[in-house]
């Protein structure tokens, strides 16, 4: 099964990822332009046997230790693209086409995955292509949904819309679910209409430790702490035990984080 947890740095569906760990899912193909901590945690938990990605870093901090270890030991297979190729794969999926044309530089990546060209029928020019990416399930986390499943975001959208439109099934977690019609106006920032969404759950702080613009800040301290946690395989398992397997659900995870931490993230950084 192919899963895409969408969102570039912002609105990453961590709560959904943690729940996949709790349910001890296995053999998933995890797709994300930027695997980020969420996939590092899922890889450490043995959820994945393949990762499709374009940048596997801890943004602003460094690398992803569990991902590194899994790749260096051959525990997971990878299917690697540039960012542009990755979003182009989603564009194809979102448009219902089997491939997407783009001008892609000649890198060594091309030796490791199918990377075909087509000839433009009008100019004869050779144009790179990538195959469509059609996730079985894409999960997005949004600031607001309404009762009809319409999803609204503000701030960075990254590849969220294309990842959702490309998927067979779209699941959403939302900071809050509002009454139908709350956001009716052409100026509001609809991510996706409800008829394209299979299910929505209200999950406050569902993007922690990433952030939700206008609601809470990124937990930078945790992003920085993760390197030390994940670098040590045993420490990493202990962390999963304590924070994910050891919590029944996302409410318990939040309770464990503590109200003080949540308040601090909501207030933003004091020195601004």
């Amino acid at each position, binding site marked *: 099964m192919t899963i895409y947890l969408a969102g570039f740095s912002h609105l990453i569906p961590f709560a959904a990822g943690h729940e996949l760990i709790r349910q001890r899912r296995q053999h998933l193909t995890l797709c994300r332009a930027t695997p980020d901590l969420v996939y590092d945690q899922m890889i450490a938990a043995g959820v994945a046997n393949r990762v499709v990605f374009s940048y596997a870093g801890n943004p602003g901090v460094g690398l992803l230790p569990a991902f590194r270890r899994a790749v260096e030991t051959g525990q997971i297979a990878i299917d690697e693209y540039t960012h542009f190729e990755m979003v182009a794969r989603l564009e194809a999926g979102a448009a219902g086409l089997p491939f997407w044309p783009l001008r892609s530089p000649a*890198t060594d990546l091309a030796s490791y995955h199918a990377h075909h060209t087509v000839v433009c029928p009008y100019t004869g020019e050779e144009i790179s292509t990538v195959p469509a990416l059609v996730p079985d399930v894409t999960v997005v986390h949004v600031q607001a949904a309404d009762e009809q499943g319409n999803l609204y975001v503000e701030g960075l959208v990254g590849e969220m819309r294309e990842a959702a439109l490309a998927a067979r099934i779209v699941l959403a977690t939302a900071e809050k679910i509002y009454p139908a019609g709350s956001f009716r106006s052409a100026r509001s920032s609809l991510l996706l209409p409800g008829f394209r969404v299979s299910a929505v759950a209200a999950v406050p702080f569902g993007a922690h430790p990433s952030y939700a613009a206008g609601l809470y800040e990124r937990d*930078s301290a945790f992003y920085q702490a993760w390197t030390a946690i994940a670098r040590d395989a045993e420490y990493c398992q202990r962390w999963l035990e304590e924070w994910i397997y050891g919590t029944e659900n996302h409410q318990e995870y939040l309770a464990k984080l503590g109200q003080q931490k949540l308040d601090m993230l909501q207030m933003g950084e004091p020195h601004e």
Partner: protein
Amino acid sequence: MNSRDIMAIASARLLQDHQRVLVGVGTPNIAANIAKRLHAPNLVMIYESGVIDAMPKKLPLSIGDGTLVDEALAVLPMGELFSHYLQTGWIDIGFLGAAQIDSRGNLNSTVIGPYTHPKVRLAGSGGAADIACHLPHTRDRFAPRLDFITSPGHPRHGAHPDGRGPWRVVTDLGVFGFDECGEMVCLALMPGHTYEEILDHSGWQIPRAAALEQVPEPSSREVQTLHALYSTLPGGGK
């Protein structure tokens, strides 16, 4: 002031006012933010996360930070940014870090060792997008042959036409350009460093420009600007 800070300041000076620059994570991000606060107030900072013309109040820790969005001209879906602005040549300069570089400006930010059995698995390409670059100067990193080409440099014969391809490389030891054959040349030395040191720390013999320059010491305004930026980080920077 450590060597990363001096690299950041030296590369900030390479950016010109009104340029549209695709800003990579790490030192490039610091450098662009210094330039914008000093000699290039109209620098258009573009981030692969989809932000056009960011005006961050704080130094962003990553290229997806909220501060990049707040006063930005626009936030686009990533796909639009890549296809409508990068692919069509509307971005003047790309500004990246990398793990390794060779004499043609090929960059490696993917892997050390064989791709299928890596010694060190790095983050990979992301939006690596190719004009200036930035890295600590060591023999491992200035390599005659890369383990992996993440971002292509100048083609085997001659330099890219029209100013395309890598333009400047900034390290803790010096600033480098490329000659008409597409081969790297040392243009300037960082304060307190020598050409001999560069040769010692490079995996091949980098030629020197006829008029080898000296990178001026950071000015007090540059230093102040950098410290002001750092002070916006959580904990007031390192």
